[in-house]
């Protein structure tokens, strides 16, 4: 009996040592892919893969002077084989789960993004927590090879930049792969995608000394919101229109509104907790939409002489803020309905949700119906606070 117990103990200890994964990969053998970019030349995709050099990121002494990331460029007809091809240039097996940014070149976006998205939702290694963006004017591999200040890894730079701009500045939105898939396959909601552009010279931006100056000349910036119909890019919204769009889809979390107070100066309010309710209805087989925006605001900056203890002043500020927001929404609606005819607001989904039967009739030529559909916009802003002081800073005029 004792012998048997001993045997059990030995066997169990052996089992402990035998654990391990069949296809294990050690940390020093894998290359963490943090950004992927796709461009197209002819019928071949150029895949740029940004791989992190962990020893350069982690070391506190500044590392050995090598670049913290490497961006490889490979060409092939499909994405997955282009990534696999990389094993012939890099000593490490690429590891995809830590991907942060997927960057689609403008050329690919115009031709249609569906072919490059399949592998992203099919491959078992990839998660769904990375952001998808597109480039405007430049190529994806150029964006991925810019040297960025403050953040050593350009993909992380783009990732956190988008995350913060989404939260504190109105025009740009994050987009994840599952949402993108849903929007492309849905007929009642089209896609928009934040577009990044390179400012300054790309050649200089790729040099290491780009991050050595205090004033940065060559940098990356989110500039527009790309508008898609199905999976093809058809145009861009500028910052104002993009903000208008994001009010409608209830994505804005915190932003500031500028409004003129005289010919040269402006007042600013800060919106907190804006909330939009979109209601769709169909009367006499004609769809219509009502967009209601409700928000609280604080006074953020005053350039004109104002006494904030006057209730009328507050009322005027509220009215002006409302007018400004309404103007932004209207400009977005105008551009989309008159020019792009692509239902990025998801009005179709709203009609679908409230009137599924009627929706069946509209679905086939929705972009026509959408373009002619009346949209009513109402905005209600209430100012709550005015900051630390109750008057604007006096000037001697």
């Amino acid at each position, binding site marked *: 009996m004792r012998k048997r117990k001993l045997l059990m103990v030995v066997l169990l200890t052996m089992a402990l040592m035998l654990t391990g994964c*069949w296809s294990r990969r050690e940390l020093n053998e894998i290359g963490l892919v943090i950004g992927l970019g796709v461009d197209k030349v002819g019928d071949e995709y150029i895949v740029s893969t940004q791989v992190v050099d962990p020893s350069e990121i982690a070391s506190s002494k500044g590392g050995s002077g090598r670049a913290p990331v490497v961006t490889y460029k490979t060409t092939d007809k499909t994405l997955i084989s282009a990534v696999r091809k990389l094993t012939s240039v890099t000593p490490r097996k690429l590891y995809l789960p830590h991907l942060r940014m997927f960057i689609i070149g403008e050329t690919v976006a115009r031709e249609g993004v569906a072919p490059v998205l399949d592998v992203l939702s099919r491959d078992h290694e990839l998660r769904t927590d990375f952001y998808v963006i597109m480039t405007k004017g430049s190529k994806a591999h150029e964006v991925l090879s810019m040297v960025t200040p403050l953040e050593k890894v350009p993909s992380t730079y783009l990732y956190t930049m988008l995350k913060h701009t989404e939260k504190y500045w109105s025009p740009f939105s994050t987009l994840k792969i599952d949402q993108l*898939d*849903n929007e492309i396959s849905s007929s009642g909601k089209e896609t928009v995608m934040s577009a990044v552009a390179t400012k300054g010279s790309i050649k200089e931006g790729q040099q290491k000394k780009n991050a050595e100056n205090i004033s940065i000349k060559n940098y990356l910036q989110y500039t527009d919101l790309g508008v898609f119909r199905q999976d093809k890019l058809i145009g861009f919204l500028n910052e104002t229109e993009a903000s208008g769009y994001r009010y409608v889809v209830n994505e804005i979390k915190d932003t500031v509104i500028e409004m003129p107070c005289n010919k040269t100066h402006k007042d600013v309010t800060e919106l907190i907790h804006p909330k939009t309710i979109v209601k769709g209805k169909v009367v006499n087989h004609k769809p219509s939409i009502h967009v209601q925006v409700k928000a609280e605001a604080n006074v953020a900056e005053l350039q004109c002489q104002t006494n904030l203890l006057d209730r009328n002043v507050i009322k005027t500020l509220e009215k002006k803020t409302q007018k400004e927001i309404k103007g932004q929404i209207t400009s977005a609606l105008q551009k989309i309905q008159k020019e792009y005819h692509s239902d990025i607001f998801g009005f179709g989904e709203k009609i*679908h949700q409230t009137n599924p039967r009627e929706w069946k009739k509209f679905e086939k030529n929705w972009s026509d119906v959408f373009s002619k559909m009346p949209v009513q916009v109402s905005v209600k802003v209430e100012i709550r606070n005015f900051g630390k002081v109750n008057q604007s800073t006096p000037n001697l005029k």
Partner: protein
Amino acid sequence: MIGKEKIEYRQFAILVLLFTIGTSIIIAPNMLAAYAQQDAWISALLGLGVGLFIVWCYSVMGRYYKELTLIEAIHASFGNYLGFVIALIFSGFALILSSLVLSNIGTFVSTRLLVGTPLDAIEYIFVITVVIAVRLGIETLARSSEFMIPMFTFLFFILTFAVLPQIDWDNIKPFFEHDMKQIMQSSYGFISFPFGELLLFLMLTPYIAKQKNITRGYMIGALIGGLVLFVITLVSILSLGGHGTAIHTYPAFAIAKKIDMGGVIQRIEVIMAGIWMFSIFTKLSLCVYVTALCLKQLFRLRDMNCLTLPIALILIPLSQWLSPNATDFQTLTQRGMMYFTYGVMLIPFLTTGLLFLKRKWMKNKNQS
């Protein structure tokens, strides 16, 4: 004759519960959403209603058979020859069901968790564990499942609550967009799998200590199991959308992957996979146990344990032969199994009817 093993009705309920959840928890939302998309939760409720009625019928039959198992009841009603054929079909059903459950978990692990590990290696390890469990008998199985329930419940609630931030109520609208036909079409599969399959428990009813509690155990197990499946389906639709649920092979795993609570608690899908590891282990063990019991009674063997290893050895090739690839499994195999289950579900009804007439006839004969 039944041996000395006895289980409480509570243990029976837990076995039914885990069996119901079994493999359904990972693939039922996908099957339900295939036809009804965002209306799948209606199909789930409909299926649950009909399923519970069928389970109630089973339990009444189980009480009627008293100390007979289904195989013995078949013998008693159909006689030796016809009875043998019908019992053989039933045993075949149990065997095929076991192999499908095995292929389900095997494919899941090899495509989602341990990619690169051969299917065989995963299936062998699973089958060995199951064989050990089955050889220890139904009492041990029942007690171990009782032990699993708290962990299962805990993980299930974590999963459900952790997904709540990802929920978008617009995903479920509009209600009743699909007509009754499409909604019913989704329900058919849900009624047979898992509720129809619960007829395997008619082989175990004689083990229950107090016969009058059979209905209670059966119904409570199936009801809670069905509700768990309903909740998972609902959560899948709410977070992935109707279309998303229909295109993901394993929606439950897909929603577990989406868990992200404040950027702190994330990437815990493998822990969540524990939920279906427990339930699938129980389901597979029960399937193998019932298969062995069927064969034992069919061939009038004295011992059941000699059958477990051969069954286990058959299971692995059988599972790979029945579902050779992912496409076949999601289409042909699932569909074929549905019809097979509906066919087999007739057996206890026919048996009971015949037994009832026979007993009545005997009574009349005795009286006259």
